[in-house]
């Protein structure tokens, strides 16, 4: 497969996954902001969304203050923000457009239709219609893209690059959402009902609320939330699950120069496979997640160098 084709497939799936995770993050933040709390606490949550995506400067340059409406506008439909949901959907579609001959026509039509629909929605329309509805729509379109990929695409190299992009992006996003929410939630300690709603919202944002109930059949505790989202191998948005898939797909596309990247992926995977949540928390969750996200970044870089960036003429 052409390196450029693989690059487009990889980023197509990353952008659509990123749009979904952004919708999840914004949705949970929006829901948390509806729980009675001080304005200061609420704005702290919105601030965290900006910080999580390292967009402090871009945001400050375009908006006078951090508040719900400004952050939502910036992250949902600001075309000037390269990682707003609308930008992600546009970039997913542009990447799909460049490889429309490689993906199935159903996949291309799904990506194209998603973008055409998103393009026509102004922020006011989205907000007035109920922003939660829009987040649901983004999640459904992402699910549809994934479903149509799994349901129609030959499981060849193209498929592996798409899965690699999806799972790498998801691992990064779950780690981020966990990091920022833990950071915001932890200092308050046990404050009863509020915390329950906050943790509940976090779990819901990664479709893990029912899963938590099923697995633990007990009250929600931060330790278990961390365990579920980091170490559960069978939880589709956990770091362990994602790294399992990354490693598997990476091994399927291996080439002569990808040994080091495979080793890195194996290392990250082993850390999750053999870790215990007590050790992670003892080490400090924030530090541990930061290390993990660095690892993910390096892995993405390695994949790019080994497969995606046009290789030099040396055969």
């Amino acid at each position: 497969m052409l390196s450029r084709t693989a690059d487009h497939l990889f980023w197509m799936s990353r952008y659509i996954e990123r749009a979904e995770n952004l919708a999840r993050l914004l949705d949970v933040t929006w829901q948390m902001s509806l729980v009675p709390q001080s304005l200061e606490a609420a704005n702290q949550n919105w601030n965290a969304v900006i910080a999580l995506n390292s967009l402090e400067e871009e945001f400050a340059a375009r908006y006078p203050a951090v508040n719900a409406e400004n952050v939502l506008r910036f992250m949902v439909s600001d075309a000037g923000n390269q990682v707003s949901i609308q930008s992600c959907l546009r970039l997913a579609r542009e990447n799909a457009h460049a490889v429309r001959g490689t993906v199935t026509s159903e996949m291309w039509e799904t990506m194209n239709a998603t973008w055409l629909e998103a393009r026509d929605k102004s922020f006011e329309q989205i907000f007035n219609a109920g922003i939660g509805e829009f987040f649901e729509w983004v999640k459904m379109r992402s699910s549809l893209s994934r479903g149509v990929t799994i349901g129609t695409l030959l499981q060849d190299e193209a498929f592996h690059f798409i899965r690699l992009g999806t799972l790498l992006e998801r691992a990064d996003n779950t780690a981020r959402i966990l990091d920022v929410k833990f950071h915001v939630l932890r200092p308050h300690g046990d404050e009863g009902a509020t915390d329950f709603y906050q943790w509940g919202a976090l779990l819901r944002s990664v479709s893990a609320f029912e899963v938590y109930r099923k697995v633990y059949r007990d009250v929600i505790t931060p330790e278990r939330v961390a365990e579920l989202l980091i170490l559960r191998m069978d939880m589709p948005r956990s770091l362990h699950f994602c790294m399992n898939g990354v490693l598997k797909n990476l091994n399927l596309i291996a080439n002569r120069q990808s040994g080091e990247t495979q080793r890195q992926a194996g290392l990250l995977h082993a850390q999750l496979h053999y870790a215990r949540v007590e050790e992670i928390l003892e080490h400090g969750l924030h530090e541990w997640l930061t290390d993990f996200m660095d690892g993910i970044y390096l892995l993405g870089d390695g994949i790019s160098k080994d497969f995606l960036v046009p290789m030099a003429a040396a055969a």
Partner: protein
Amino acid sequence: MNFYNEMIDANGGVRAHYRAYDEWLKATPPERIARKRAEADLAFHRVGITFAVYGEEEGKERLIPFDIIPRVIPAAEWKAMQSGLRQRVKALNMFLHDVYHDQEILKAGKIPAEQVLNNTQYRPVMQGVDLPGQIYAHITGVDIVRAGAGEFYVLEDNLRVPSGVSYMLEDRKMMMRLFPELFARHKVAPVQHYPDLLLEKLRAVSPKGIGNPTVVVLTPGAYNSAYFEHTFLAQQMGVELVEGRDLFVKDEVVYMRTTQGPQRVDVIYRRIDDDFMDPLIFRADSSLGVPGIIRAYQAGNVTLANAIGTGVADDKSIYPYVPDMIRFYLGEEPKLNNVPTYMCRKPDELKYVLDHLAELVVKEVHGAGGYGMLVGPAASKAEIERFRQLLIAKPDGYIAQPTLALSNCPTFVDEGIAPRHLDLRPFVLSSGECVNMVPGGLTRVALTAGSLVVNSSQGGGTKDTWILED
């Protein structure tokens, strides 16, 4: 002017080959037709069968309007046309081989040598280069119109990177999807095997000694107006769609960059103009091409389809000589008509043209796509004067032809069904001795009342083309 109507004869009766369709159309409720037309629009949009329009907002994509009334040609007419196309394309390929080798036709004085050798489309790098099967134009899109009392004329031979074949295929797919019952009533010759035929031709012209050639389609990229077609053909043939940056040349061999390392490329169906193919030889500022590819080509290590330098044979200043080429190389009389052409570089012909501008069509010698032309009868006085100045300033840049009374065909427009002018572009495929084509081609229709310009860039639409077997 009287126009030949493809569907209705001079006495107002429906022509035999349109009778079944006409009955169907009359029996079908208008609401159903309207619904189907809307369905076609929606489907073309959703599938993204669009083209980019130059000069409009960057990256803007537009649908080419599709008309549901087919253009029907009886098999006997097609058979005659096909035989004329074979003859013509064969002669054009022989001419190109001759020009880039011994130049017999120039020595024989059939075509003024300076017309060929001073032409900007003549590529000295091709002199003496031997090509597989001596084929230069592997894919030719010949534009044919019907005029006068119904006879066919060749308007131009497109030997560089003719486009439109994907619309021919998508139009058929759409017609079959919308109106399957029509195909049960008519014996319409199939066209869907075009990509297979193309792949077969491309494989047949691979460099010597290559058993199982790697074929690719080379595109300028996603912002090209015909990008849809490039992806479509690559997908239909099951070959890679590459951009210049995906290829590189090492030791006069072309490779593509893949996830498994470099892979050799043998045949390139290129949809990039000569000028942009190799910055080392042609335009140095081009980033669309591949540095060193012309050296690899000259060394015979890769086949380009179409060949470099074919433009010297489809240039409008060479067009008037095509009948002479047919006589010279094949010893036959041309089967297809050429449009009488005034060459403005000849002073007496220029004088005639200047005196009759309001009746003539004036075309730029190197122009294409319906840009930079004057349709005398439809032009304003100011436009005519502007062209007069252009002609006087640069006579060898223009030719002129009588305004043909292009045939028309009933077409759906805002006001209902009305006659609109059309042309036909069959796609002729060549490799070695064999010249093949699928029956019919792309019918383009000018949607503006009275307009004679059918190019999609000028607001033209398309129709499905039916060669009706008896």
